[in-house]
């Protein structure tokens, strides 16, 4: 049985790395005695997968996890017993039963929307940044890839920029296997383009989106639109 679980990673949990969160979820499943399926072979591991890794220090109100269970559980039951054993900072938003034919989360998700705050942001600064960046073709940032420093062009990885709540920046960045820009790299871009140093900032991932027949959809919307006949859905109150 295949399920997708939507959850938040907030508060102190934003300091837990993606890798460590994986173990947290594994152990939580075990404590909750959820019948998780294991891979076959020499070194069996639990069949749990995640959406695109969240950078350390960035919070999220929309993370996704895919799990395979050996028995069918009601989505409500799965949500309830999982939440009961989760450490504070992780909150289950919804659980969906998804059919085999649904895509893999990690491969399907392509974009993340981040809300970024900083004391250095003013409406004027943000406005001129958005204006300036649209005129540029190439903005180089450094990226570690297999312990080697690589130069990447960040410009095509920035899909959309909006000003919200007066002086916050909402950035839609490519987030996935075919291209990825971290918030900290985006901050570097901001500093380069605006010439303004950003000492302190905080960010929350507010959406994860994938491209489906030309439309940008969230995983929840994808299931509702294409697969719900075969699956089931529960929204946690």
């Amino acid at each position: 049985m295949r399920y997708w679980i939507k959850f938040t990673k907030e508060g102190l949990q934003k300091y837990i790395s993606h890798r460590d969160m994986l173990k947290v979820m594994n152990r939580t499943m075990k404590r909750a005695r959820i019948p998780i399926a294991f891979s076959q072979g020499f070194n069996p591991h639990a069949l749990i997968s995640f959406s695109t890794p969240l950078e350390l220090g960035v919070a999220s109100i929309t993370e996704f996890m895919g799990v395979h269970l050996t028995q069918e559980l009601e989505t409500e039951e799965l949500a309830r017993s999982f939440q009961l054993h989760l450490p504070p900072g992780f909150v289950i938003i919804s659980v969906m039963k998804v059919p085999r034919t649904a895509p893999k989360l990690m491969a399907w998700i392509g974009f993340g929307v981040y809300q970024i705050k900083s004391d250095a942001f003013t409406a004027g600064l943000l406005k001129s940044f958005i204006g300036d960046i649209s005129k540029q073709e190439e903005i180089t940032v450094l990226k570690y890839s297999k312990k080697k420093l690589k130069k990447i062009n960040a410009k095509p990885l920035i899909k959309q920029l909006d000003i919200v709540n007066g002086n916050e920046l909402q950035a839609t960045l490519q987030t996935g296997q075919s291209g990825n820009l971290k918030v900290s790299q985006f901050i570097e871009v901001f500093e380069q383009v605006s010439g303004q140093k950003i000492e302190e900032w905080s960010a929350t991932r507010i959406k994860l989106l994938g491209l489906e027949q030309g439309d940008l959809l969230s995983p929840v919307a994808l299931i509702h639109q294409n697969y719900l006949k075969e699956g089931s859905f529960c929204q946690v109150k």
Partner: protein
Amino acid sequence: MNYNEKILRILPLVQRPARYIGNEVNSIHKDFNQTETTMALAFPDIYEIAMAYPGFQILYNTVNSQPQALAARVFAPALDMERLMNQHQIPLFTLENHQAVRDYDLLGFTLQYELSYTSVLNMIRLSNIPLRAKDRTDEDPFIMVGGPCAFNPEPLAEFIDFVVLGEAEEVLVEIIKTHQQWKKSGEARESFLEKVAKLQGVYVPSFYQVSYQQNGLISEVVPIHKSAPEVVLKRVIKEMDKVSYPLKPIVPYIEVPHERMVLELFRGCLRGCRFCQAGFIYRPVRERSVPNLCSQAEQIMNNTGYDEVSLMSLSSTDYSAVHELVAELNRILVPENVSISLPSLRIDNYDIELAQEVQKVRKRGLTLAPEAGTQRLRDVINKQVTSEDLYTAVSSAIEAGWKRVKLYFMIGLPTETAEDIDGIYELALKTANLGRHGPINVTVSTAGFVPKPNTPFQWAAQNTVQELESKQHQLKGLFRRHRYIKFNYHEARVSFLEAVLARGDRRLADVIEQAMLAGARLDSWDEHFDWQLWQQAFEDSGIDPAFYASRQRSYSEILPWDHLSCGVDKEYLWKEYLNALEAAVTVDCRQNNCTFCGACPNLQAEVLLTKGE
């Protein structure tokens, strides 16, 4: 004072911020202001190392299970965090409530290795507590230490208020009760120390005076306070099944070296390896029962979600019902995809069926410790294994599918000759060539031998740094020819410093303090260890480190730890030392007659095996 807000501001700026956030599954948060006795439980190293140590969870559990007491954890900050704490004026704080350490009633350090001493001092300093015990006031916590190094706490004597010798489960509760009575009485600071000094296993260094002869040797150690006993005897739990074990251990968020639940099969070891301090200070052997261990395993599994259980003790294959235990555990664990690991395999009773049974779910590497390269030297150290034992063990492991082996050795053991060093090479080479389709991969790790207090080698001179380095060099040259053998060794200066601190006395206080003030901390980390800082500190204090590390002692010499007893008689250790020089072995008293080490009668305890005789 609570520093939560200030800490949250600097977290985005540090490496691995999860080291400082606490709030892990099973961590305990009691109300600081509503609890009578508050204890900051400290491990003088960074989070990952501290949380990999199972004894810490026992202490945490013991204190927190007292209704009117709480324990909160505090670890050494990494260097980047220390810098930020200085910048933002944040004193050392506990993980549980981000409360300043100085606000606690007690601050207890566990001393697992000597190279953590500068971190102990640094943590006291970062807490804004006066370094020297004599300078502390009612505003300061009492600083206590325990753990294996507490059997010679003399190098730290000036800095600590009291020491706990031996196992903590019972005495810690007595200390807490004493503290509560003292607090109610409103008496002076010293009267608390007088009261705890009367508890068995508690040593108050300031109640003893040490004097020295012209030649630097100790002339006497005398109690100068009426409540201080001549000799402080360690504490021991007589029946392991009767003390509680942490069934809800804290599950760290971040990766630590051993991510698994731990079952403690037994305490103590009677093999009598003469280099091994643990083999003497934790006597006698006391086993937990199979049903008790199985029920613990099931509960801990359900409370933590770990997928591996480690069967811990000083020599787990010696557990009298080991087959029964592994079979019973597998019945519970295999359906849950939980694997077993057996960390300390012995070569002489190595049992391939057991190894396979243990690795039913996941297969791990094979690690064996012959310790020395020749039979003669293995007899000297009383490690009763033969090279045949090793070859048999490895051959059957290869047959069962293992493809790589790790071998542990020590260099610089007493009486060691060039032949013994060659022996390490030959043993490793022959082991590699047991492979059926060409040689298997072998990793050889050598550690410089450090003579430890309370062992038969407590009188022995350590090899000098030059001697150790030349032996490492010799082995490096020999192994270079073989691609399939990987050779690792420890930095000789580290072993040297360890030896100085292990058998040091109160005169080392200035050296440790100066090294710490000059920047030494986290010395057990290769990347932080800086010999220059120590060398300078030795020079400035006018102390010759070789006096402690490289000097042969005589039996008549008063050793700095003679007034502290683990139960084993000094005469017995000396007899064992003489046996070592003759390469005469002493057989485990479980297989043979009592060896009269003194532990059972002195401690009024006995060897307790779960499976009778």
